[in-house]
């Protein structure tokens, strides 16, 4: 995995239950490798500075801003991107509650919400706020996102 000349290395990532290989620089972020090398463009660059959350994926089940993770760091961990979610309750709830408009922040919001629901099936408003304030949505007024997340939590 390590190339001492400091150029490119082969990174084997476990993404959405598949082992995927990519040639990358150690300085490449997980976000860039997912998008540019693996074609998983669901994670979106919004700031590449850890501020907006549009690039959120799950790493070992925890939400991570993939722009704040080096691809080489994620070797050996379970990575789930929006492409790895199939007809989950939170995806259905986002549609039913109109929890998106332009859709750009949506993958990040869904991944964060999905992680929240897995870890805190009984999350109270404070915990929901703590988690979801990691992401920015510029189109909605957030109420629809709240409705989507709470509707899934209630079902549980």
């Amino acid at each position, binding site marked *: 995995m*390590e*190339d*001492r000349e*400091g*150029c490119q*290395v082969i990174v084997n990532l476990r993404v959405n239950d598949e082992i995927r290989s990519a040639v990358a*620089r*150690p*300085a*490449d*972020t997980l976000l*860039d490798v997912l998008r540019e090398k693996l074609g998983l463009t669901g994670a979106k660059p919004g700031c*590449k*500075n*850890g501020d907006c*959350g549009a690039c*959120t994926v799950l790493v070992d089940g*925890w*939400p*991570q*801003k993939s*722009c*704040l*993770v*080096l691809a*080489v*760091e994620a070797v050996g961990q379970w990575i789930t991107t929006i492409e790895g979610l199939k007809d989950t309750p939170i995806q259905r709830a986002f549609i039913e509650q109109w929890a998106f408009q332009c859709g750009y922040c949506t993958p990040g919001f869904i991944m*964060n919400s999905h992680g929240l629901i897995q870890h805190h099936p009984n999350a109270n408003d404070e915990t929901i706020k*703590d*988690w979801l*304030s*990691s*992401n920015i949505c510029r189109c909605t007024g957030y109420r629809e996102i709240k409705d989507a997340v709470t509707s899934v939590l209630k079902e549980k």
Partner: protein
Amino acid sequence: MIPIDFEYYRPAAADEAVRLFQQLSSQGKEPVYYSGGTEIITLARINLFQTRAVIDIKGIPECSALAFQDQKLVLGSALTLSRIYDSNVFPLLGEVAAGIADRTSRNKITLGGNLFSRLIYREAVLPLLLTDSVLLIAGRSGVKQIQIDRIFDRTMQVEKGDFVAAAMTDLNYLSMRYAAVKKRKIAEIDYPLVSLAAIRVDGMIRLAFSGVCAFPFRSRLMEEILNRGRQPLKSRIEEAVGQLPAPILSDIRGSAEYREYVLKNVLSESIRELGGA
């Protein structure tokens, strides 16, 4: 996208990390220890961070410790701020940590990373300063234990090549009454205008600050003034604020005058809360 290239190492033991550091240094690669890495990644993206090798310490067992040993809580420097908060082992540290950045970012930001931040805030240091915590520092001569106030002066003053593997805090401190207040400009996710951590130890209130000056600090002089029982609180606060170790910050988050005003309020509230009025 990070424009610089660096090598990435992930040693499994502290001594291996130290050896790597020496070796990479001698090759002129100006290595850095890498824990959460959020700051290295974001600063490197805008050309504010240079290195040719990073040494990720997350694979070193001591750095991931979360244990009670000999009446002390041991927290590894590679523990994330979220992990510390969720574990609830050190409520004051957990609460201060939970005010840093946002939850998802805290899933990556680590205790050690925050202590060594190049930004001026480094809020995680406040609880450690207040509790006389001891840092486990790995270096060429093995692992040393050093009390934090002997090594933290505005910034961490570790020797080149050394790294903090863990922080140890006396259990007695963990259950003491504390206050943690963070005031921001307006947004709920932002750097502080004023961040204050306080703890009541044997009837005396200790206080540490971030966001007030260009570095975080605990001031024993201010503590001495603020703990004077007979003086009215308002005048103690006035006097203590006159003894700040550096000018109050004035920046895009707030002017020095407003910061001072907020600081006084925060002091008043916290001291009352801790029964020091």
